[in-house]
């Protein structure tokens, strides 16, 4: 129904503005209707990184786009928690200081949602309690190996039958 949709839209928009500010350390992120007068209208995204003008998200840089997309993802999750979320190398385009803000946001959200992060970045690995290594000791065949648990050693979870 329309009322439910508007409720979702407004709540997610608030969350989007909040997570955008947290990820960029300031600035404004917002969802707008492409056509205010049409109830079935599509949704546009506008972003204003700190110190810049408000612009269409397509003019942003590679790293700014990734951060804005993450802010929207987090906003949707805060409205409808997802049981888990798998992010495959989303930290690749980010510089050092944005990786730190990204990992901080993931830690905050990890109460609600279980994150599985595929990454090459050491800083991202540091916030993970569990680390799964994938190797191809036998060429062409993947195996899961060594698992690290922060709080005390437990039985390594990866078992190949």
């Amino acid at each position, binding site marked *: 129904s329309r009322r439910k949709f508007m409720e979702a839209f407004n709540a997610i928009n608030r969350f989007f503005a909040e997570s955008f500010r947290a990820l960029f350390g300031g600035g404004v992120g917002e969802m707008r209707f492409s056509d205010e007068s049409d109830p079935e209208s599509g949704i546009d995204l506008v972003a204003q990184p700190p110190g810049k003008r408000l612009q269409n998200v397509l003019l942003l840089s590679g790293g700014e786009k990734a951060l804005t997309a993450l802010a929207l*993802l987090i906003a949707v999750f805060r409205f409808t928690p997802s049981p888990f979320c798998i992010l495959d190398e989303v930290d690749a385009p980010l510089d050092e200081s944005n990786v730190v803000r990204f990992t901080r946001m993931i830690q905050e959200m990890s109460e609600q949602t279980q994150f599985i992060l595929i*990454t090459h970045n050491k800083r991202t690995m540091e916030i993970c309690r569990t680390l799964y290594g*994938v190797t191809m000791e036998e060429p062409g065949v993947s195996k899961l190996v060594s698992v690290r648990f922060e709080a005390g050693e437990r039985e390594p979870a990866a078992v190949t039958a």
Partner: protein
Amino acid sequence: LKLKEIELLGFKSFADRTRLICDGSTAAIVGPNGCGKSNLSDAVSWVLGEQSARILRGERMSDVIFSGTGTRPPTGMAEVSITLVEGEETTGHGAEELERVLGVREPSEQDQPQQNIEAENQVEKASPKTRRFPGSEIKVTRRLFRSGESEYLLNGELCRLRDIQDLFMGTGLGPESYAIIEQGRIGQILSSKPSDRRAIIEEAA
């Protein structure tokens, strides 16, 4: 709902049975280029019902079955199972769906479209909230044979793709959700059409 375990057998480069056990905390998957990390994420999209071979980076669906190496023959089947555990709080209409599954439903292969009417009755029959106890599990399995035949199972019983899709509706794991972001696609969330963005909000509503 919480993710408890993912199990692969013959799926892409995971020729041998492999289990990834999750304890609810944030986990990292690491390893050199080409070792199979993204294949794990593809396995989860697949078991949740992904129908497009392209999204799974193949040309046809049989590309997900282990195709052999210099020393190993290709396998005849790919199988992935995912086990989810009921958390204390489950929100949205996924909760009712879960209730139905853990309750009385006996999926059978002869299910016909008339099934839907039956299913409606069953929801009424399921006794109230007491049937759901935190810790109860659902295990979804998907198989694909080289012959092209595919199977879906719910807690070990054969079922249809529709049942899996119904199950995950509203839990944030549907096809429109952001639960799995493939490699290199984080920017796509921004460049999708305005009408697609609307669909994301509608799914969440």
